[in-house]
């Protein structure tokens, strides 16, 4: 919606294709607060955040086709052809000059992390349970264990507790939580839910329905089988990471980056298929929706510029330096302001974020605290990279 509004404001006709019954994506089931602090300077729930954009979409008369699933995008006769289906329209072929990919991400499932054991009913991803409780109005179980300490899992620990269920434990394989500290405090400590760090779920029991799980501690990287214990439960929720949903992009031949599982993009957030842009969680997984909206606006503005014939005169390479997992995007336009997002590989207080042009530090920033679950951002002005030559490289480092 943020990208569509930006394109509309620049005079380009836009169509939004949405698979769900409503606009707003995953926000509609995220009924908790904490959204919008950057975007609107107040703390909103997910539906409230989405509705502010939806109201703008309506005001501007931007077209949206709901319950519409895109199957394929192709290059046909100098245009992009989008093949999609909907119950009311049937099969559709839509032509466009540019496409913005904003499909979001999906949850890693039991199969992705290969938990041994039987295959009874009662194993859900946390987001599916969230949808069942908050939109469909069903409680998936009474005695819950959550695997993984991602934010959705923590939020669901509180949600299930408030729904009258008992959350017995959260099991995390890493020695530190993957969710935000505020969620550990508000969603676990408030309800005295134990968090087992450096523990692995090594078995799931039950024939028809989950009856319990086996948990094994990890010490110095080895499973301590003699210290394994069981927890009785009827429901297991998984919060073990998110993966950008790029089936359509991959089918279209768009190059995907292993570090992010999202498309490779240049300084305009354009993928390897000219005229196809990407933003939000389909590009890389964000932790704040405020960043998603900012990035989407940028993708919309860039797509509008591209449609009007703008092409960067030159681009220089952006790469990861020490302690940085990825930098987004992977190209920098030395003639424009560049907004960069990156993720840390380390947990550290008083860190220094450095931008190095061919090895020389051209910009740096002190950060009070960094950790992998909190995305970092940086704005790079043209003057910082004015000295860049044809084969220059910008490296982002954390020291």
């Amino acid at each position, binding site marked *: 919606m943020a990208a569509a509004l930006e394109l509309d404001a620049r005079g380009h006709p836009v169509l939004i294709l949405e698979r769900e019954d409503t606009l707003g994506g995953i926000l509609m089931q995220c*009924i908790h*607060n904490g959204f919008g602090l950057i975007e609107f300077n107040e703390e909103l*729930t997910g539906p*409230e955040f989405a509705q502010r954009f939806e109201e703008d979409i309506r005001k501007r008369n931007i077209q949206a086709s709901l319950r519409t699933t895109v199957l394929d995008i192709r290059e046909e006769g100098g245009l992009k052809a989008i093949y999609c289906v909907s119950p009311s329209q049937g099969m559709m072929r839509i032509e466009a000059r540019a496409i913005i990919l904003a499909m979001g991400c999906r949850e890693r499932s039991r199969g992705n992390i290969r938990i041994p054991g039987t295959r009874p009913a009662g194993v859900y991803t946390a987001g599916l349970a969230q949808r069942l409780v908050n939109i469909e*109005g069903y409680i998936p179980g009474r005695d819950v264990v959550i695997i993984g300490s991602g934010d959705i899992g923590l939020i669901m620990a509180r949600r299930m507790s408030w729904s009258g269920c008992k959350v017995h434990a959260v099991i995390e394989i890493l020695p530190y939580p993957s969710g935000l*500290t505020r969620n550990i405090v508000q969603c676990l*400590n*408030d309800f005295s839910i134990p968090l087992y760090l450096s523990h692995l779920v090594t078995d799931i029991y039950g024939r028809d329905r989950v009856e319990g799980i086996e948990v094994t501690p990890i010490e110095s990287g080895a499973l301590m089988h003699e210290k394994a214990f069981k927890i009785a439960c009827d429901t297991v929720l998984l919060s073990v990471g998110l993966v950008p949903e790029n089936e359509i992009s991959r089918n279209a031949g768009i190059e995907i980056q292993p570090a992010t599982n999202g498309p490779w993009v240049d300084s305009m957030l354009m993928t390897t298929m000219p005229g196809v842009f990407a933003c939000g969680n389909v590009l890389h997984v964000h932790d704040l929706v405020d960043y998603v909206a900012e990035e989407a606006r940028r993708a919309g503005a860039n797509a509008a510029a591209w449609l009007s014939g703008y092409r960067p005169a030159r681009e220089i390479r952006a790469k990861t330096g020490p302690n940085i997992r990825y930098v987004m995007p992977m190209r920098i336009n030395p003639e424009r302001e560049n907004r960069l997002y990156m993720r840390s590989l380390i947990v550290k207080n008083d860190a220094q974020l450095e931008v190095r042009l061919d090895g020389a530090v051209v910009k740096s920033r002190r950060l009070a605290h960094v950790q992998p679950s909190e995305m970092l951002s940086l704005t790079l002005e043209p003057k910082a990279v004015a000295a860049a030559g044809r084969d220059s490289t910008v490296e982002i480092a954390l020291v």
Partner: protein
Amino acid sequence: MRELICITCPMGCHLVVDTDEHGEMKVTGNRCARGEHYAREEIFNPKRVVTFTCAALLPDGSVPGPGSDLPRRVPVRTTVAFPKEKIPELLGALRGITVRLPAVRGTVVLQKALGTEVDVIVARSIASK
């Protein structure tokens, strides 16, 4: 003595709250003044924003069926943070509340909840068809 983790910012300072010889509250472990403020609030008057869902009813008073495109729950929230010790009682009250569609964001479903100054409002507008 009580241990807390400050949630004002992502630093997550581990606070230790104690009383000194005059019975005054003393906070250590915080890296800035906001930590002390947080500890004071958290000890004397802990509050949380409560978000919940209430059952949705169609305009004729029936419940949306399984084939319906309409959600069966309507998200609601407290306007501001609500006293923590009264949350279980608040949830009990919200379980008994139904919201008839169409729902309009901001509509009060529970005024001055449990004698506080806090209202519970609808968090999402939902059409009735």
